[in-house]
Structure formats: C-alpha cells, structure tokens
C-alpha cells in the first residue's frame, strides 16, 4: 500500500480539563472517502480541525501528504494550501462577490494573475453548478448555494485533500441534496475526502469507510455496510437507532457507560 494521504497518530486534544480527543489513530489513503459519524461532543469536528491545525493538538502527530502538519517548523500556510476545508456555516466572505470569493485567495495566496484566477474560478463554479451566480453576493444565495460556492472556493486552490465539517447541518432539508450531489461527484473524481456528517444515506452510498467516534475515541472503523448496516458495538447501535428513528429513543438512564456524556 502507498503512503496514506492523511495519517493521525496518538492524537489527543484537551480544552482545559476537558479531554475531547483521547488518543486517535487513523489513516486515510489516497482517493479514499471516509465519513466520520458520532454523537455531538464525541470529538469528530475537533479531529477534523486538527487535520489542518485549526485546532492545535495537545499530543500526537498529524501527517498530510507526507508532510508533518504538527511539526512546529512546518510552513503551515503552505501545508494548508493542499487541504481544502468546508465549514458548517459556509464562511463565505460576505463583502466579496461569488467570483471574488474564489479569485481573491488564489491571487493573494497562490499569486495567480487575474486572468488565470478568473478562469479557475469560472471552471469551479461550473463544477458546482453555479456558473450563473458568478456576480451575486453571498447574502443573495440560499444556504445550499452558499455551501456549493464554499466548496468551489476550496477546490479553486487545487487541494489534494478535502475536509468537510458537517457541510449540510445548517441547511434546510430540501437544499441538502444539491450539496451532497456535488460531494458525490468529487468522490467519483477520486478526491481524498474526510467528511464529518450525520447524513447516513450519503455515508452508506459514497464512503469507502465509516468511522464511528464516541467520547473522544474511535469505537468502530470499517466498510459502511458493516459499521452502519451491522454495527459490532452497542454504542454504535445505540447511536444509529437514535439517529434513524429519533421518535423511538427512550429517556436515557444507563448513560454511565458512555464516556462522551461529560461534554453535553
């Protein structure tokens, strides 16, 4: 097997006394799509944010494309250019038009000239199906459109890895599909993707692997049909049953066996 695109070793992260990640080891191969699922507070977003060092790990090492991101001497800005990130809240730049959202980072960070940046921007807007919104401002777009622009903005930098932090959680249900379709297309093109999500259908259909986290550790890691279809661990089954049918969930009593509950 070739060297993994993302490698996480012994990763721990605490916020004060609160241990959010308690030793994570994870490898993601080139072109692999990995969905990370788990209850809120399980540390899955923190794990994702450690991969591009938006959060600094307390302990452990993170490699992306062979470069150690956690090395204090690494040029983190250069390393991040290879890692695209999509946020739950889109985080488009509201004072810039859609096209400028895509061209400004290319010009300021990659030093591309105006014409080249504009061409790459147009290509990527077309890729997410929003070529006709090139001159609109983010506030004039729906949530789903904003998120697709955010994906295009990340892609315009030519990343080798894409991180998605609950990309559809802030969207109205009817807008989720467009965003997932764009992500599905990306996966098909062979992009290495790490996706924190609650979309089980997407995980089942698109992911090569599903990782279930709870209480700051990886509980289960395997093929989607195994982790989602036939989970081995009680915690995974418990989580999935609540997710698939929230109305059937009982009031929790026996929560002592769930270490994740100290962080609601």
């Amino acid at each position, binding site marked *: 097997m070739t060297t993994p695109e993302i490698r996480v070793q012994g990763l721990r992260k605490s916020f004060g006394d609160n241990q959010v990640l308690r030793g994570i080891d994870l490898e993601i191969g080139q072109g692999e799509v990995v969905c990370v699922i788990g209850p809120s507070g399980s540390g899955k977003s923190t794990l994702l944010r450690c991969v591009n060092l*938006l959060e600094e790990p307390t302990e452990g090492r993170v490699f992306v494309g062979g470069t150690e991101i956690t090395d204090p001497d690494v040029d983190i800005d250069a390393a991040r*250019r290879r890692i695209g990130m999509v946020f739950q809240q889109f985080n488009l*730049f509201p*004072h810039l038009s859609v096209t400028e959202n895509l061209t400004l980072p290319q010009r*300021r*960070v*990659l030093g591309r000239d105006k014409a080249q940046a504009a061409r790459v921007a147009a290509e990527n807007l077309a890729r997410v199906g929003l070529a006709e919104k090139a001159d609109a401002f983010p506030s004039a777009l729906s949530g789903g459109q904003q998120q697709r622009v955010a994906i295009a*903005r990340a892609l315009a930098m030519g990343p080798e890895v894409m991180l998605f932090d609950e990309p559809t959680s802030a969207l109205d249900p009817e807008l989720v599909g467009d965003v997932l379709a764009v992500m599905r297309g990306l996966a098909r093109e062979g992009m290495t993707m790490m996706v924190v999500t609650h979309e089980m259908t997407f995980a089942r259909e698109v992911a090569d692997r599903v990782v279930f986290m709870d209480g700051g550790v990886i509980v289960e890691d395997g093929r989607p049909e195994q982790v989602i279809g036939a989970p081995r661990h009680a915690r995974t089954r418990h989580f999935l049953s609540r997710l698939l049918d929230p109305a059937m969930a009982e009031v929790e009593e026996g929560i002592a066996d769930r270490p994740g509950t100290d962080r609601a």
Partner: protein
Amino acid sequence: MADTDTGVQPKRTGLTRTRRRRLSRGAQYAVLAAAVIAFALTADWGRLQNQFAQPGIARQLFPDLITVALKNTVLYTLSGFVVGLALGMVIALMRLSSVGPYRWLAGIYIEIFRGLPALLIFIFVGVGVPLAFPEVQYPGGTYGKVAVALGLVSAAYMAETIRAGIQAVPKGQTEAARSLGFSPARAMVSIILPQAFRIILPPLTNELVLLFKDSSLVLFLGVTLEQRELSKFGNDLASQTANSTPILVAGLCYLLITVPLSLVVRRMETKALKEIR
C-alpha cells in the same frame, strides 16, 4: 361584604385607556406651549436681533468666513482624522496582539488619552513638546501641530472602535481564510479589516463630527490671521465689531457640516440594521 369572590381587586382610577392617553398627551402639549409662550414674552427680541443677527455685520464676514475660517476648520479636522485613524489602527492591532507588552502599551495609551481633556493635549503638543525638544519641527507648522494634537486625542477613541469592529467579524471568517492558506497578517488585511470597517463606519463618522468641534481648540496654539478657523474667527470678529453676530454665523457653519454628517450616520445605521435582518 359584597365582594368576597376574589378578595383582591385592581385599584380603579375611573379612567378608560383612551381618556388616560388623551389626558397625558394634552398635559405634555400644555407644558410645551407654556414654555414657548413664556420665552417669547420674556425675551427682548429687539436686543437679541441687534446683538446676534445684524445682516450688515454678517455680510462683512464674507468671503473670509468661507475661504479662510471654514476652509481651515475642514483642513484641521480632516488632517487630525487621518492621523488619528492611522494611529488608532496601529493601537487597535497592538491591543489585539499576542505580545503582552504591546497590549499593555496600547491599553495605557487609550486610558491616558481618553481620560485627558483635549485642551490639555493641545497645550502639551503646542507648548510642551517644542520646549522639551527645541530641534523638533512639526511638518506643516501649525497645521502639523493641529493634526498631531487632534490625532492623538481621536486615536484613543478610534482604536477602541476599530478593535470592537475587528472583534465583531465572526471567527469563522478568520478560520476560512487561514484554511485557504492566508497568513494571519494577510487574513487581517484582505478579509477581516474590510469587514470591520464596514461595521464601524457609523461610529467613525461620529468621531469625525466630534473632531470638527474639537478643532476649535487650535485657538490655544496661537495662530496667524490666515490660520484662523471658525471659532477663533467668529470670536475675533465679535470683539472687533462689538457684536455677537459673527459667533452665530460661525455656529451655523459648524451645523452646516455636522448636521448632514449626522444624517449620513443615521442612514448608514438603518441600512446596517436592514442588512442584518
């Protein structure tokens, strides 16, 4: 007792809501009318007009009122604003720095210059500094002095405004920029500051209005005839003519500038509110 069913009854005033409202409004208008009438009857209109509104004297003020006094007021204010904005920006960034001493220095500066009367700072800049450093020359002479004095005063206020503006930009904006490979400095300049300035445009314009008025303190620096601004000009001509008309006219000139500015601020604020909704 007849009424035993509830025990407690609200106190009754015997007034319906409509009547109460009408009464209250009537009383307020009555007070206003009485005050206006009392003022009109007690004021000696002839003397007032003689002292404050003599068309002949007002005419004498032109064109110097505009070409010298108003021009200088605008010039002093704008140069002070530019210096204050630049310095305020530096102090705001120092205040947000990760280096402790920078934060402390900025904090001390802000506390000192916000706590002192602008007049003292003018005297300090105009008299203290030249005495202490005889070889130091302000570029532009009096204009430079005023720019520095007004700049020092306004920088303290603007620094706090700018800092608040920077902190009002959501954290996700910095994160998005950093995740795209922007360095912290580039993210600040290209992404955060443009948004912060949009937020603080109304309070900065308010600061400009305040500076217009503070520019009158140039009076204490000693200025030549050509350097007089509105207040000094009005005051000088009032003593020359032994009449207060120049003061009134100079005052109107201030309002000519500050009132439209205030209106602009109000429009920006309502527009900003609409955008949030």
